[in-house]
């Protein structure tokens, strides 16, 4: 598992929101930054294989997971996303040699920042999904969706801090 917050999984929600607060018809909105070479293609293949996942997942194609600026992640949360998924090539497989290592480091930092501003770091998830791992893609989205359901709506979105 690529996510560095593994050890924190057991923690209670740190941003005050809970699944119980959610309106009845609420479904977590997930922004997915998917790298062009691996994860985006993996997501395409999930479609070809007719694997089903939440329609609230919306993809944004980027060239490399390493090109996902901290500002984009924060902007996604400020705009109201309940979760942000970053999908990159497996370590060692990066089309640009080592961009995914940089992504990993950056995500670790953003998670700390999130904790600082009262946003549960579990709302940000990094996963290595290769172009053939359609099953892993669909499962990653569904598992993430479950996690976000437990966390409830993004509190920043509620307050519209933007």
């Amino acid at each position, binding site marked *: 598992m690529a996510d560095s917050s593994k050890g924190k999984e057991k923690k209670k929600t740190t941003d005050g929101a809970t699944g119980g607060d959610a309106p009845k018809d609420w479904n977590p909105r997930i922004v997915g930054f998917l790298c062009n070479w691996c994860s985006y293609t993996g*997501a395409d*293949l*999930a*479609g070809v294989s007719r694997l089903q996942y939440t329609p*609230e997942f919306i993809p944004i194609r980027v*060239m490399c997971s390493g090109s996902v*600026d901290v500002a984009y992640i924060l902007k996604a949360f400020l705009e109201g996303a309940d979760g942000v998924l970053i999908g990159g090539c497996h370590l060692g497989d990066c089309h640009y040699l080592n961009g995914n290592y940089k992504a990993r480091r950056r995500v670790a930092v953003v998670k700390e920042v999130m904790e600082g501003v009262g946003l549960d770091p579990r709302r940000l998830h990094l996963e290595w999904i290769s172009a053939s791992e359609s099953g892993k893609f669909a499962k990653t989205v569904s598992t993430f969706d479950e996690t976000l359901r437990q966390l409830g709506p993004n509190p920043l979105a509620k307050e519209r801090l933007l």
Partner: protein
Amino acid sequence: MTSGVLVLGGGVAGIQAALDLADAGIQVYLVERSPSIGGNMIRLDKTFPTNDCSSCILSPRLVEAGRHPRIKLLTNSDLVSLEGDPGAFTALVRERPRYIDMNACVACGDCTIKCPVKVPSEFDEGLSKRKAVYIPFPQAVPLKYVIDPTVCLKITKDKCGLCEKACQANAVNYDLQPVDHKLDVGAVVVATGYKQIDTSLRPEYGHGRFKNVITGMEMERLLNASGPTGGKVHRPSDGTVPKRVAFIHCALSRDERRGAAHCSRVCCMYLVKEAMVAKEHHNEIEATMIHMDLRAYGKNYDSYLDRAKDGGIAFIRGRAAEVLEDGEGGLVVISEDEDGVPHRTPADMVVLGVALEAPDGAAELSEILGLGLDERGFIATAPEDPSGLRTVNPGVFLAGCIQGPKDVPDSVTMGSAAAAAAATMMVASRVVIEPDEVPVTDPNEEPKVGVFVCHCGSNIAGVVDCPSVAETARNLPGVTHAEENIYTCSQDSQVAIAETIKREGINRVVIAACSPSTHEPLFQETLRDAGLDPALIDMANIRNQCSWAHAEEHEAATEKSKDLVRASVARALLLEPLGGGTEEVPAKALVVGGGIAGMVAAMNLAPHVDVVLIERAEQLGGTVRKLSTTFPSGMNGATQMDMIAGMVEKAGVKVLLGTEILNIDGYVGNFKYTLRLPDGSETEDTTGIIILAIGSQPYEPVEGEFGRGGANVVTNLELEEDLVDPPKGRSYAFIQCVGSRNEERGCSRYCCQATLQQARELAEAGNEVTVLYRDIRAYSALGEAAYRAARQAGVVYVKYEPEHEPEVLEDGKKVRFRETIVGKTIEKSVDQVVLVVGLRPPEGLQELRGQVRVPGDQEGFFLERHPKLGPVETNTEGIYLAGTCQAPMAASEASLGAAAAAMKALGPLGRGWVATETKVSEINPDTCIGCNLCVTLCPYHAIDKDANNKAQSNPALCEGCGLCAASCPTQSISVRHFRDGQLRAQLHALVGGGSE
């Protein structure tokens, strides 16, 4: 029709040959027997030793081959005849009917859903079913359906016809007939691959009798995430995960009696890979290898084996004799080790590393081409060519496994090498390739967005309310036109869209359809046709990542489609024209190093461009010149090198002997280098590309290591002098793997087979020869036969374990070693000890690495671009690798690699230009604080500092990954086409609920 090269076989070797030739401006006819290119490699799950996903790395090549303007792809086709002479053949190729009109089919898949016929899928080795109308696999090229006429009810019994009714594109036509193509070709590359041997030749292994005995290829499909079990290792009998899996190596390989006498070369590694991947998928699996010599001869293969051993995979040495049922639903593998001790390995599932042999039709094909078969049944090579590239017909070349089993990098190398050989016959037919003209669009024109919403038959429209998506689009700011199409990608829609763009004055295009990964290039062509810069497009992926993924949620999928279109429009409004950039490449090449690799590279380039070959020594020929006989040709090294040096001279290569390279600077098309000439003077010149062929150096054992320093201890290279006129009546002990296969280094690859030759010569001359070895890695086409011949000549082979290394005593008059069969330590008196030494990176490699920006590998050799698909390229465009400076290899392999490097170089050299990336980073010098972060981060060394301590990016080197932009603390960097504002607009539209 222009004259071209005929490439037979669309596997990885054939595709490589085709792409290389086409990139150099030569027309190619790529003929494939099955309905899609891709060969066997596309069916593999992962590739050793990197565990790269096989289809992920190969699929882009398939797409490239399918789209290349100079590759005419003929699938479902066979060669019927070849007439004429080298340089002017006429080939007759017959294309069997697909029963699907390729121009009309949009691969929506509506036909296959309706088809009632189910038959075993060839792609999945029969482990899943396919329909009578099908695509072989999702990434097939061409991505067009095909009807299997042997099982289609309409064609066989004139019943059914459901697919014809289902197809809204009217592509189904049951009356299609075979089409003959008469092709003018100058040369032929044969790359028709291999097949697995019939396992019923050894029924005792149980394949076909016991459900849970499967082949290696079946295991590949089980491990594959998109395979029949979704990547779960389920044993065929009951679908459970087997706890104990036994892997039988050399199943019908190295088997003179009933199977193939040759080594199949790939099985050792792929079985270990399968075991490792299986354990990754199911940690509880206990894997056992039942193996003979472990032939892990390639780059990083030994460390891969070590990882497997550390990862808990068990290795039992010996030949598997039989697989039995244990009476309780399990299996037992009976094997016998070298000591004659039988082993019983219980297993829940058994995987056979089945021998590879020539594919069906090899005999017929060799007859059509007039080539003959070798004793193994593969197509015969010319006796004078040890590399296996040439045949008795000077216009026909071999690539990949049709010459004998090979792993992927060797097949790729040989594909490029065959292309190089073919290209030398096509010098006059090479066409001038002009860079594509990019239509100019005024960036300041007010954006007018046209939105095209695709129904994809019912693939999108069956789930998403397309009219309402188009209606939403029509009302978005900036949108001046929105329409729906049944198939946006169909030929007639393309024409109509181009007309609409022109008529409506549209200057930004949004296509709401399938994936940009597969279809954006197609629509970009439409933009070009309409006179727009092709960068001014954005695709909303409302099929693969919407309608297909939310098939039951019509309303939500419609809302998501609208959001995706909103985001695309928001982004399209901010898109800028990118134009096109090229860098000129002069027709000049520099080859550094005049050994066999450098000479062959130079020779292959010389018919096309000006070549300078520099060599530090006073003579061409490098290490091979020192060999009394070379393997496998048996030719004297010096004679062979003189012959090639003569050809180099005749080809018009400018050779500079006694010359050293002092410095290299610049980039593709514009390299500058400094030389020191024999008189000590320095000179500078420029070149378009550089091939590095600086070789390697033999390991020098330290004083005392295996008795080194003793009067009777020599290395295998020092022994060569004695072999010119071999002595008689002496006793020799060879010690293999000196300086190889230790903690720092892997196998040196050349040595086992080189020793076979030396040992046999000595034995045949009447000497007593003992070879102390770890594994005999006689993997090459003639390797196994040479191994048998050496044993027959009386050479005694004794295996040693690294824990019990042989000892050399009394200045090399005595060796002490552990005899594993009798389990005793033996002291043997000898006249000479021969240390068989590995290869090390040569002096000066380290310094060159910095100058050409090519990193080193774990052992200090040059790091190739990709271990599988780019073995002779580097990550620096315009720098190529030939021979042992990339990794240890045999001379014949170095010559193949050198020809391959020349072919890769002929891409930019033949065109005379390279396209530069247009989506590159731009740095704002006004806000740059000169912190250096981007300079250190850039993987391509594309950023440096200017005189004012500001970062500057070189567009010739930038690949557009965006790492710099994402890391810049002052937001001074942005990447064209992926600018901050564009991404923010997308985000706002997707999450914030409107256009910004």
